[in-house]
């Protein structure tokens, strides 16, 4: 038997197609961008041809029609033609306002509660069943409770956002506080720092990356929940807009709303990403 080692390949066989791509687009970002454009183009093409040749439901608008309507909404977002006919900008601002208030209320409850739970393992064990039961509840299940107890639709929307978005912040704050590097605590003990000073000056900044990453998830959930809540509550907001346009059978407006909701969600996420980087000081996020 011949047990000699297989000969190492001297040179990888070059693929002529890859070679051409590599000379035209030398870096990966460029290659990815071109691929992105190709995928986008194919989707739009399929959509346009499909809609024109009647492959889909008759409600389905063509891609070109959707794009032109999209531009119509986006180019004039703040018009007002009577109480029920306003630009999409107004609806987005209303929704954002509710999300900001609801998220802030949620965080104002979740962060102090998370610190308390994180500091005292006994409290953590005692409170854990409540958290585990309430955390997975759908926002829509809270809505009737809110309407029943608060009776005001605006406050109900805020209540629903607060109560569904506070959980990730609560859990991450608890995790961050209870997992502070024990050597930081040893430092404060050797210096004789008070409990309060230790919490404010050491535990909170040490837990900050964790807290902010919880807030990032919470903000995402808040923005996710607002559309559903507004569809049910009605009146104003981007959720109401979507439902109203569905009643008008204006699919292009709904697609416009979907794209804008997605874009704003992305911006919110990136803002929290920046905040996360800003409080991390080289620690892994």
């Amino acid at each position, binding site marked *: 038997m011949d047990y000699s080692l297989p000969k190492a390949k001297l040179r990888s066989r070059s693929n002529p197609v890859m070679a051409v791509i590599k000379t035209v687009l030398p870096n990966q970002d460029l290659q990815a961008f071109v691929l992105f454009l190709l995928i986008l183009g194919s989707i739009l093409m399929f959509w346009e041809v499909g809609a024109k040749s009647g492959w889909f439901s008759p409600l389905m608008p063509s891609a070109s029609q959707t794009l032109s309507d999209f531009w119509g909404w986006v180019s004039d977002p703040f018009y007002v033609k009577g109480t029920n006919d306003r630009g999409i900008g107004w609806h987005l601002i209303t929704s954002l306002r509710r999300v900001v208030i609801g998220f802030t209320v949620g965080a104002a409850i979740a962060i102090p509660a998370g610190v308390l739970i994180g500091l005292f393992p006994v409290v953590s064990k005692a409170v854990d069943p409540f958290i585990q039961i309430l955390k997975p509840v759908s926002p829509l299940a809270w809505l009737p409770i809110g309407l029943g107890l608060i009776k005001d639709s605006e406050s109900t929307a805020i209540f629903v956002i607060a109560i569904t978005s506070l959980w990730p912040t609560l859990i991450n704050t608890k995790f961050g506080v209870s997992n502070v*590097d024990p050597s*930081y605590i040893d430092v404060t*003990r*050797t*210096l*004789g720092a008070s409990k309060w000073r230790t919490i404010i000056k050491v535990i909170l900044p040490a837990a900050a990356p964790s807290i902010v990453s919880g807030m990032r998830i919470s903000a995402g959930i808040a923005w996710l929940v607002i559309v559903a809540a507004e569809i049910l509550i009605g009146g104003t907001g981007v959720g109401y807009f979507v439902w109203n346009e569905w009643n008008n059978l204006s699919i292009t407006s709904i697609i416009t709303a979907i794209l804008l909701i997605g874009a704003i969600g992305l911006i919110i996420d990136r803002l929290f990403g920046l905040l996360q980087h800003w409080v991390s000081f080289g620690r892994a996020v």
Partner: protein
Amino acid sequence: MMLSMEQENNSPTQQGQDLAQISVRDISMVYRGRSGLIDKITRRTSKDYIALADISFDIAPNTFVSIIGPSGCGKSTLLNLIAGLTNPTSGAILINGSEIYAPGPDRGVVFQNYALMPWLTVAENLHFALETVYPKMSVADRKSRVYEYIELVGLIGAEKKHPHELSGGMKQRVGIARALAIDPEILLMDEPFGALDALTRGFLQDEVARIWEQKRKTVVMITHSIEEALLLSDKIVMMKRGPAAGIDEILNVPFPRPRSRENLDQQSGYHDLKAEMEDHLMRETRAVEASRI
């Protein structure tokens, strides 16, 4: 200068107990096993682990003491006990004659993993320590003190950097500056150079030797390195292996100061001391390894 003169005169000789700055009296440390009723029912009992057994020794003021021993012998436990971060199962630790139960700013601690606050700059890390220990100190005094200690450890220019922008050696210099800035009587160092590469380690040892010539604190340092102990210490506490670790022997290092790495091995008795320590450590380490098979 007064302190250093005194030091020259009496440090190598054994001092009486009344002069001891740190007095470790019959310290034992036992980690309780599981022996409760529920543990017995579920058959998950475990035996008590005796980490340290009846350790006693005294450390005179302004002495540099190294504690050396095989890994797992409870060196760090002993240092944490002196720092007051943990309490002994039995026995007592006296600082200047009075028993301690908690950590305090009379004992500055340098941690192996530096334990710098990542969200504070170099200067802010020192400010935090000073502000905690001396809340009434004026801002101007604090600033000048911070500058003084940053200068002492040779980090002028890096005051506004955050720890993640520093090398390991620089981080530990900040750790040393922070521990010294609060002006403790005693400096406790837990393998301060353990996480550093050999060259940085040597460089920092020289720095610590230089700083000690200036400050002459009572220092207790945990180390694994024989050369490090011989370069820096007045006394070397050699510990036996655990469990129930104790002190094997306390060696005097009579070499004159200031010492230098280059001519340390030409001091009379250097090779004998080193051989004795190597012999001890090899014997203990071999026994530790053998007990694990």
